[in-house]
């Protein structure tokens, strides 16, 4: 029966129907829902891995063992998993292996706007790109056939607009593939120089064959219309182009983005008067066309930065766009904020108050960089807070050691913070690391991780003890503090910064949005006592505002955490009656 599905959900359905049996992923917007949907199928083993590299290696092991496997990640996650990717390109697969990478043009929820197609080109593996949910389902199934026929992992690239848009799909049944028993094959699977030297030519030959396959395959198609303009496009750009042109242009839709075909492009170019490439981010199809000697309009008209839309494309090609009302008033922006009751807030307030230099990491707590806390001074990539703090302290010595900290979440610490901590323990910098342990992977929508004690299905699982882990790694000073207790936070921060050795502070309280967390009644602001000093506003809680010069509590948001109460010297914020 036809139904609406998110692109990511349809991707998961395609994996299911293709007989995928093993899934290991690390969450990352906009890729997360593929694996969350997979976890609903009991026929498939699924798990959250500590990071993308581990996930890809696990998926590789499973395909080696003879099961169709999958791993999913966001664009920057593929950087972490690049190491296994570039070499499993050489080994190839046994049963099929599919990798999801989800790009985020427009950076809705990412730290950069990299174009993952470069990884497919550099790793020499095929990459396919659907443009809606129906294609996501179909392409996921075809990906396994491609993987097994060409002996290669296959990357299916999503983007925010395909991953997070619902469109109509018609799901089918699960069909299990033929068995692929594991066979020992040292020459194929042990990538030491003598063997890898022999595999490299196979990779080159494979990509040539795939480029040939691209001329006549279910991923690429020509839709001839008006021939005065011919547009080559991929992914969601195809949808914008169709929206603008309908039949008024001829279109070559590319679904197999690596390797790009030659004959079909040359043939298409010969049939149209003007050739245009519409692709988000980098000029990859355009560069290919130029290498073929074709004259083409591409990034000279369309931007490299940001997402496309139908109006933007229409404007660039001189088509009319709808009139719109212009606002004449600058409106206050509404950036994302830490939620009311967020356990990170108390710690960031403490850091801000102590004028601590804070090197940050990737997660909800990156919001510690925005007003009024303005605490975090650097965010780079997963795990960088700890490694960079070490480098910062080694470079500045005593000057920074007593006032600099790394802040990192529990999930990010497991992902790639541990190696940075090993460096601190080993190379002995007098660094302080704060693990903001909110007992979940928050930003991506509450996924379990190795420190939570639960697996992807919410069943009890192995639980890594952070205190014991830090001790075992050679950190003698490990303190645990409740970030709702500002006095305790202040005390522990001062002590650990003053200590003449590496230390870890675990700031522990579960995410306020977790269903298992019980909230207190909203606080009550006593307008008779409040003098409007705004002390309570210093923590940037969205539940507190000033109304007629007095503090007011939004009772639909306040969870009664009490952090603001500790800032009020006049006792004007009272606990709600239970």
């Amino acid at each position: 029966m036809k139904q609406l599905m998110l692109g990511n959900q349809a991707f998961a359905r395609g994996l299911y129907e293709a007989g995928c049996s093993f899934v290991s992923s690390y969450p990352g917007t906009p890729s997360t829902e593929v694996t969350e949907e997979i976890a609903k199928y009991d026929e498939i083993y699924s798990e959250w891995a500590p990071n993308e590299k581990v996930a890809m290696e696990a998926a590789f092991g499973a395909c080696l063992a003879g099961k169709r496997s999958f791993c999913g990640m966001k664009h920057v996650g593929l950087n972490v998993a690049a190491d296994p990717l570039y070499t499993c390109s050489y080994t190839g697969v046994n049963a099929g292996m599919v990798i999801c990478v989800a790009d985020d043009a427009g950076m809705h929820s990412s730290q950069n706007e990299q174009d993952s197609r470069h990884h497919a080109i550099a790793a020499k593996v095929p990459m396919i790109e659907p443009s809606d949910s129906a294609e996501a389902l179909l392409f996921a199934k075809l990906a396994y056939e491609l993987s097994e026929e060409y002996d290669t992992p296959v990357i299916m690239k999503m983007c925010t607009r395909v991953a997070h848009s619902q469109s109509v799909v018609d799901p089918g049944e699960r069909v299990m593939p033929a068995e692929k028993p594991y066979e020992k094959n040292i020459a194929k699977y042990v990538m030491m120089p003598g063997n890898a030297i022999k595999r490299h030519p196979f990779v080159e030959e494979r990509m040539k064959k795939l480029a040939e396959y691209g001329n006549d395959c279910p991923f690429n198609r020509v839709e001839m219309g008006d021939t005065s303009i011919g547009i080559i496009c991929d992914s969601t750009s195809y949808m914008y182009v169709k929206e603008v042109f309908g039949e008024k242009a001829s279109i070559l839709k590319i679904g197999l983005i690596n390797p790009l075909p030659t004959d079909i492009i040359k043939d298409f170019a010969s049939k149209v008067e003007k050739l245009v490439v519409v692709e988000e981010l980098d000029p990859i199809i355009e560069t290919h066309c130029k290498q073929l000697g074709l004259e083409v309009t591409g990034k000279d008209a369309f931007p490299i930065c940001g997402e496309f839309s139908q109006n933007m494309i229409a404007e660039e090609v001189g088509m009319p766009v709808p009139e719109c009302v212009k606002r004449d008033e600058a409106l206050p922006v509404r950036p994302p904020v830490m939620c009311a009751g967020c356990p990170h807030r108390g710690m960031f307030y403490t850091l801000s108050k102590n004028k601590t230099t804070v090197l940050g990491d990737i997660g909800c707590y990156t919001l510690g960089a925005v007003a009024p806390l303005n605490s975090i001074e650097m965010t780079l990539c997963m795990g960088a807070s700890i490694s960079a703090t070490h480098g910062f302290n080694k470079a500045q010595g005593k000057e920074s050691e007593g006032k600099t900290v790394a802040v990192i979440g529990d999930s990010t610490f497991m992902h790639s913070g541990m190696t940075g901590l090993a460096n601190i323990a080993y190379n002995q910098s007098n660094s302080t690391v704060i693990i903001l342990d909110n007992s979940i992977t928050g930003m991506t929508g509450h996924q379990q991780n190795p420190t939570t004690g639960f697996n992807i299905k919410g069943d009890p699982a192995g639980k890594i003890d952070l205190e014991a882990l830090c001790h075992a790694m050679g950190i003698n000073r490990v303190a645990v503090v409740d970030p709702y207790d500002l006095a305790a936070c202040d005390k522990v921060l001062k002590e650990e910064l003053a200590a003449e050795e590496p230390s870890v502070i675990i700031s522990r309280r579960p995410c306020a949005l977790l269903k298992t967390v019980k909230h207190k009644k909203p606080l009550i602001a006593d307008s008779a006592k409040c003098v409007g000093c705004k002390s309570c506003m210093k923590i940037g809680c969205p539940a507190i505002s000033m109304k007629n010069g007095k503090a007011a509590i939004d009772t639909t948001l306040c969870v009664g955490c009490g952090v603001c109460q500790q800032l009020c010297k006049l006792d004007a914020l009272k606990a709600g009656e239970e």
Partner: protein
Amino acid sequence: MTKNVMIVGVGGQGSLLASKLLGHLLLQEGYDVKVSEVHGMSQRGGSVVTYVRFGEKVYSPVIDKGSADFIVSFEQLEAARYLEYLKKGGRIVTNIQQIDPMPVIIGAMSYPENLIEKMKEKGAEVDAMDCLSLAEQAGTSKAVNIVLMGRLSKYFDIPEEKWIEAIKQLVPQKVVDINLKAFALGRA
């Protein structure tokens, strides 16, 4: 002809259920439908927007400026923020609730005044109502989304029973009655 509905609000207000209901209903009515959502960091109390498009054949998943037939807003300022997206002659259905954004909370800016009137002056048809009170009247402040859907339903050529049926299919059994009441209050 593709019709465009934008659902806007503050992250966490429940716009995903509203778009799910609308998408589900329109699909049952035989339309091609696309719904585009925002997940991740943008959801944390920030300005959020969901696009619902339907028609014989829908291509783009997003709605562009000057194209929305309806803007359904959970909050006044957010309705004003997306005014440029409204089609000429389009309609805004908005909750009159005001939620201060961070620049207002920290005192850097003030919450703009008379937004509803200003939007009307710009030529928009504005249907503003106190959805929060109606939702509370129905039994929970969380039902603002369904109150809004109730009001939006008045402008759709789809029988009321179909909306009610869709709500019954999509919300958990124990809150069906509250949501049906919220829908009726919004539609009244």
